């Protein structure tokens, strides 16, 4: 399935937990190969000695006191759950 880049859309989609149809995978492969070809231009840039910028502005190690405060009740946190029971989110069985 892989195209002109190293990207294998079907494989990465599985990593990202997104099921794709074969048609979708094919279309995305072509489109993302184009995008990856376009970003190749970054290889031309000399980045020797340049620090990576995580943000545009310097913001570092913002901490707050680890103290309890009022926030959602369990009921509020569950208010949008697709399935819930006994004050818990319900999901399919994880361990056999």
């Amino acid at each position, binding site marked *: 399935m892989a195209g002109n880049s*190293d*990207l294998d*859309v079907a494989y*990465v*989609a*599985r*990593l*990202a*937990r*997104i*099921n*794709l149809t074969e048609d*979708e995978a094919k*279309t*995305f492969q072509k*489109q*993302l190969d*184009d*995008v*990856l070809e*376009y*970003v190749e*231009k*970054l*290889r031309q*840039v000399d*980045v020797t000695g*340049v*620090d*990576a*910028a*995580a*943000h*545009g*502005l310097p*913001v570092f190690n*913002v901490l*707050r006191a680890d103290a309890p405060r009022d926030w*959602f009740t369990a009921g*509020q*946190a569950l*208010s*949008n*759950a*697709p*399935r819930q029971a006994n004050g818990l*989110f319900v*999901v*399919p*069985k*994880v361990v056999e």
Partner: protein
Amino acid sequence: MIGNDLTAVSIADLQLLLRRREISPREVIDALRERIEAVDGDIGAYLSLDIEAAVKEAEHANVDLPLGGIPIAIKDIINVMGQPCTCASKILNGYRAPYDATVVQKLRAAGAIPFGKTNLDEFAMGSSTENSALKSTRNPWDLSRVPGGSSGGSAAAVAADEACGALGSDTGGSIRQPAALCGVVGLKPTYGRVSRFGLVAFASSLDQIGPVTKTVRDAALIMNALAGHDPQDSTSLNEPVPDYVASLGNDLRGVRLGLPKEYMIEGIDPQVRAAIDAAVKQLNSLGAEIVEVSLPSTEYAVAVYYIIATAEASANLARFDGVRYGYRAENPKDVLDLYGRTREEGFGPEVKRRIILGTYVLSSGYYDAYYLRAQKVRELVRRDFARVFENVDALISPTSPVAAFKVRERVADPLQMYLADIFTIAANLAGICGISIPCGFAELNGNRLPIGLQLLGKPLAEARILQVAHAYEQSTDWHKVRPSIGSG
């Protein structure tokens, strides 16, 4: 005053009428409702409205507060308590916000009435609002054209007089570009100036919330309410907030404006270029000194953006897994099936593409070549701006290289769509502020389409770009021309 006029006036004018008790907040809500009923079938700006709640708030609004009794539309990616927050995605089907975003709390504290949720590209990923999974939004100036995006619903609502003002979010141009294409004002504040607590995260190192309004003064009024530190957002800056309205004036003597030569690229529509040239002359005649500057890393900005934004999106959107809120695929046979199908059925194609690209550029073996390198080039983009801002107060460019394009014209080619953001993206990478204001019209097949002028400012220099924008606006009539929708 009759309905249509009430919806067409600026927030500042509305305030005068409210404070003189010539009109009541209830009348403003009623006028908006009528206007929406008349035109939103064609425009499609709103995803949801709660008129009853707005009427209730209007009944006891305090019009002497800074935004007392002013209804504000909210992009549907910002949480308003009790309201849906769909992000224009099927995956948030049924979700209702259990809390108010900080910006919504601040609007309420200033007396404003959060009024309706506006359409967007799904999770703010797009430049035309065509990636909305829920609704098509059209440009009020030409219904066959897009409103821009991703805050297309907010910009279209303000342009079509369906909202007095609105909030949008801007990750790579999503406030400024639709504002330009719809002929309204859109401000992207400095990264950290406005809290994102309660904004559904797309790319956390780029996202900012800002106002979409009919005038520059209105943008300043809303910024006065929004700006400031919020301990709930760790990237929020703890810096003093100036009075943005007080800094408005008409004299630009002593102001130095830079024209980045790299922004005068081929591919700019000739009518857009002519409008920008004329605006530069106008700013010069108001006293501003114009100098050419260079931002050599400009050509890499779009590539950097689509690596960093997708990487961050792939991490941020991992939370949409069908477990705690929103859509869940039916009858999953195990947890992997639950995740895989929920995300297959819940996300639209652009969101899937970006999550896949973002997962890839962060994956083992590719991280250094893509993500780390992009972050380093991002630093070069930031340095470019820091250097030119030693000599100029603000930069001038088109907001978008073209006026509004046709619906479906660009959807098949994501890369072409990405290049629509070429002038806006670098500001998000560098964390600086930017504003788009109307500066003319392109004539296309007998239709007038708005053109936007972008002003970029130093970090935390919103007051300066608002000042320049206001002086320009007050010396032109572009902002007074309204689309003819609903008047015939």
